[in-house]
């Protein structure tokens, strides 16, 4: 295979190996020379990202027009950040996803001002093993702000949540934060498809981990948890802003890939009496937003890889992110930040690595796309 055509990546990796080999044999003086030369080359080639995680909107400088008009300045605005869908393998198998998760941790730690808390959006592990979950916990320990954990199907279906709950506690809970009622759901229950098929726990996990594996059931919050949700919200007044975190989108986007929550209609019905509801979800690994009645939905980015947009069911309000560049591990991945306004509505900033951040404002969704439209992509899906 001497005459084999080499991609830019292959050439780069070979060059890198050569340099690293050479470095081992250097004395101090030559080492400094190499470092200087490398830095120069990196800058000359434009390999340094032109920006890191930057705030593009000055959120807290002054109350914006919408919140001033609503007359609800009683609550202080606040921000929170998220890291989601890291899909970690054991460190001996895969460094790629670890590198990406660490990049996100660096991002949120660099935020100034620091967010009130960091939501972890689920799918910490790829196949739910204790080693993967523990590695995830270790990485998230580096986050300076308090971390709120949410579970995803990749964390759950090896041992049906045993290890995850041992590490992080109950998968559904609620708390109040600066006048906002926050609910964290476990939305990735599935009806038993494994017993009849005599699957091992590993086979069950692998089935759920396959997005296009039609053998599995659809996600659901489930009857017991819906009852819990009703009770939890019973004491909350309908003017209180509600923030719901769920791993799967709490609506029906695309059945075949489980971009879907089977009992979404019932859950939405429970949330209907509130004036302002925002659902933040993981799982879909893409810029995704929707408005159904009083509920605004925002999908989170993954650090590990982007999913393509589904062939059907994409919400009309969603502005697609540019197609991912397969030659860049970090492209179309990232993390993000939410600005909870004084009136309790949420603006979301998609921090797409190596791209300009995109802000999706609550007003864009609640006006059904009439104002504050985010920029369109140059290259949408094929």
């Amino acid at each position, binding site marked *: 295979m001497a005459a084999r*055509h080499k*991609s830019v990546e*292959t050439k780069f990796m070979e060059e890198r190996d050569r340099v690293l080999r050479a470095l081992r044999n250097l004395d101090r003086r030559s080492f400094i020379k190499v470092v200087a030369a490398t830095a120069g080359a990196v800058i000359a080639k434009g390999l340094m990202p032109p920006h890191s995680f930057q705030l593009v909107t000055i959120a807290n400088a002054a109350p914006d027009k919408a919140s001033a008009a609503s007359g609800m300045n009683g609550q202080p605005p606040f921000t929170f950040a998220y890291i989601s869908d890291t899909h970690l393998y054991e460190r001996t198998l895969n460094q790629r996803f670890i590198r990406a998760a660490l990049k996100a941790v660096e991002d949120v730690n660099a935020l100034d001002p620091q967010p009130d808390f960091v939501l972890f959006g689920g799918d910490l592990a790829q196949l739910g093993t204790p080693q993967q979950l523990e590695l995830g916990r270790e990485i998230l320990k580096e986050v300076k702000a308090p971390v709120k954990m949410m579970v995803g199907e990749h964390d759950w279906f090896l041992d049906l949540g045993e290890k995850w709950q041992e590490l992080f506690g109950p998968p559904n809970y609620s708390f109040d934060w600066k006048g906002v009622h926050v609910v964290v759901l476990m939305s990735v229950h599935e009806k038993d498809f494994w017993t009849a098929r005599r699957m091992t726990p590993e086979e069950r996990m692998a089935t759920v981990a396959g997005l*296009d594996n039609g053998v599995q059931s659809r996600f659901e919050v489930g009857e017991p948890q819906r009852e819990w949700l009703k009770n939890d919200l019973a004491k909350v007044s309908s003017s209180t802003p509600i923030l719901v975190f769920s791993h799967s989108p709490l609506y029906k986007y695309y059945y075949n890939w489980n971009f879907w929550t089977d009992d979404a209609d019932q859950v939405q019905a429970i949330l209907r009496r509130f004036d302002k509801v925002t659902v933040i979800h993981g799982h879909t690994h893409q810029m995704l937003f929707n408005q159904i009645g009083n509920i605004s939905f925002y999908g989170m980015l993954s650090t590990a890889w982007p999913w*393509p947009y589904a062939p059907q069911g994409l919400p009309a309000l969603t502005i697609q992110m540019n197609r991912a560049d*397969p030659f860049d591990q970090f492209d179309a991945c990232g993390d993000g930040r939410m600005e909870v306004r004084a009136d309790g509505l949420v603006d979301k900033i998609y921090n797409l690595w190596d791209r300009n951040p995109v802000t999706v404002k609550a007003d864009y969704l609640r006006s059904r796309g009439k104002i504050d439209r985010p920029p369109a992509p140059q290259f949408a899906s*094929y």
Partner: protein
Amino acid sequence: MSFKPNQTVGAATAAAAILSAIVILPAALRAQQAPPAHPVPPPKNGGTVVMLCDGKTSIEIKSLKPGEQPTESQGREVANELMAEWRKEHPDEHWQMAQADAGAKPHADPMSQASKSPPATGQQQGDTYASFTSRDYKVWQAETQKFVDEGKRIFHDWKALGGTIGVSCDMCHPDGANTHPETYPKYQVQLQRVALLRDMIDWCIENPVKGKTLDPNDPKLRALEAYIYAQRKGVPLDYGKH
């Protein structure tokens, strides 16, 4: 090498064949009728008589003396006249003219009648495919599906792909989504050349999957290609699209 013994065997076989031919030939001649002959009628005007392969239709080229070679145009004229004669005698036979290419100069067509006659019904062209049964089609479909399914298996299995970091194709491409095989060949900036689908499969195997590239004839690469194309059935080809 066993050259000599072979030669001996060959010679012996030939001798046996000749012997049997001598014995059998007279019997065969006796059993069969005389082979069909096309007796050509004598020329009436001192020219050359040419007969059609039906053994009946014939015309005489007056200008061509016996033993002379006809020119190309003479030959064409003879062929056309013969066919015209034959068609006069068989007005019910259906003929279709092959279409001349667009650039060619149309010439006088003695069979122009053909396009005006109604098409015959209930006639087969004798196409190769006409002899296959629905069972054959089912076998082909099953074979194709098997190939595609094998591709699907590899697509979803990082170990079968030869990966080393647990990454399989379906993790970024559920149901083969966003592989857009219909857009190849196209210039791929990062590869610095025009890429085919297989080049991109190999690139993915080498980079995100961290495996070894597959030879274009590797059954795995062929199966992967089959699966990916099968997922885009009905999408128009659009090579070069970015």
